[in-house]
């Protein structure tokens, strides 16, 4: 049997080579939207498009009596999330961050520790998002312009390097505090990730992390779990719900394009991602339980 680690490492090395190429050839932020869209369509969304299969084949996550109950709960969670964003964007963002911290951290620790320590999962995910935001904080202020308490903060006296230092220091203290089986490799991988966050813009940083550190390893683990004859056959199974997710995004865009501007488009994209992420997190929590 092929171990989980054997799938994770190649995926991350592909991401590292891709990221270093972007930095090395000084691609800058002119291609960030294209990189984001390509990664989301080919890796990001597909990794969540087989939840309806994973939820029924994984012995640890057979919590649904029927496919009807699965899809009902899944869609209700998506609708609830959108409702929260509409009623209170602040609460929507807060919930998205909490859920993302846990979800990203949980998959990040695979190969370095068991996923049983929920606080560790959350803290590692929080570290990653903290670094992503801190290393691109001036850009983030422009994106979150509607959150005036944050966007109006005067950070002009601080250099970018100060925020890198803070994120590395917090990471070191987190790694020291927790009992982790392979502490140093986890710290080393996150250091490389922070380097990428520092040198690329926020959208490219997120795309690289989400695509190659999170989604691609998960996609390969799902392929392993589903025992399909070839990766191509497995990938075909991800397509229907990938297309459905894209249609869902386009429908939301169509009904909201009168209020969307170039400034809040990224925020809008994040709302769609958060809506798709919420139910996916619960499925993945059970899926990674024994990894």
């Amino acid at each position: 049997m092929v171990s989980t680690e054997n799938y994770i490492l190649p995926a991350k090395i592909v991401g590292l080579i891709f990221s270093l190429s972007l930095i090395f050839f000084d691609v800058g932020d002119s291609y960030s939207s294209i990189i984001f869209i390509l990664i989301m369509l080919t890796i990001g969304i597909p990794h969540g498009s087989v939840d309806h299969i994973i939820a029924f084949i994984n012995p640890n996550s057979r919590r649904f009596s029927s496919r009807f109950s699965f899809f009902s709960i899944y869609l209700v969670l998506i609708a609830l999330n959108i409702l929260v964003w509409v009623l209170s964007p602040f609460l929507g963002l807060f919930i998205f961050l909490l859920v993302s911290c846990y979800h990203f951290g949980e998959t990040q620790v695979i190969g370095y520790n068991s996923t049983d320590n929920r606080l560790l999962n959350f803290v590692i995910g929080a570290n990653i998002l903290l670094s992503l935001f801190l290393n691109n904080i001036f850009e983030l202020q422009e994106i979150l312009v509607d959150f005036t308490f944050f966007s109006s903060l005067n950070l002009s006296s601080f250099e970018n390097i100060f925020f890198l230092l803070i994120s590395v220091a917090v990471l070191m203290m987190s790694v020291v505090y927790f009992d982790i089986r392979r502490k140093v490799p986890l710290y080393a991988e996150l250091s490389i990730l922070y380097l990428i966050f520092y040198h690329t813009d926020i959208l490219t940083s997120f795309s690289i992390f989400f695509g190659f550190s999170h989604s691609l390893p998960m996609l390969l683990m799902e392929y392993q779990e589903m025992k399909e004859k070839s990766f191509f056959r497995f990938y075909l199974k991800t397509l229907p719900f990938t297309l459905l997710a894209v249609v869902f995004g386009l429908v939301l865009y169509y009904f909201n394009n009168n209020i969307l501007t170039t400034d809040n488009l990224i925020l809008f994209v994040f709302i769609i991602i958060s809506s798709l992420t919420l139910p996916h997190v619960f499925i993945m929590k059970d899926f990674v339980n024994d990894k």
Partner: protein
Amino acid sequence: MNTLNFILGASLAPGDFTGFTFFIGSVSMLAATVFFLVQHGQVDKKFKDSMLVAALITGIAAVHYYYMRDQWAEGLGSPTELRYIDWILTVPLMVVEFALLTGVGMGKLFLASVVMLVTGYLGESGLAPVLPADLGWGLIAGLAYFWMAYEVGCLTLVGGPTGETGAALAKAGGKIPEAGKMLQRFVLVGWAIYPIGYMMGTDGWYSGLVAGIPFNMDVVYNIGDAINKIGFGMAVWYAAK
């Protein structure tokens, strides 16, 4: 050659010794990274993490030296910011090599490097004038460095005491004690260039004294960095092979 020029960006001026040391730094770190990665597959399982960390240290440095060379060649001056990014990411990784070889002391070493880096940066950047750069932040950073040096047993080289990690290093099996001595020399002697550079770069120490000396601190950092980082990895490889 055109392709090479595209990759290298700006060209170094003939006779630019400082720029040349940036170039040498970049390619030597890259070569060391490839070497450590190749050796990663050859060493015993218990040393694999150490070899990987050695490769990451030189890999991170290679990327930043490539940029530093470019910045220097374009006439944008000393690349202090890029140097700090490199140090912030690689110093903790170098420090944990001791813990990887011995299995003890990681918490203290991480804590000491956090204190050293944060207070050193606060002093040099002038962000927190609540303490003076020299006998305030500089002193704290220096104490953190000596705490680290004590912990890993560097002071035993001059007949001083040792911390938990240094003691474990001396008692370890195989070639680890010998490699440990090399690592301790790197920390005690090689790392001395960093506080010297800090003192030269901040007011209150020797900044007035060095102002009149036509000497570029970048050359010292570039050569010192290459020796320290590659040497660190080579010492670990020596223990592992």
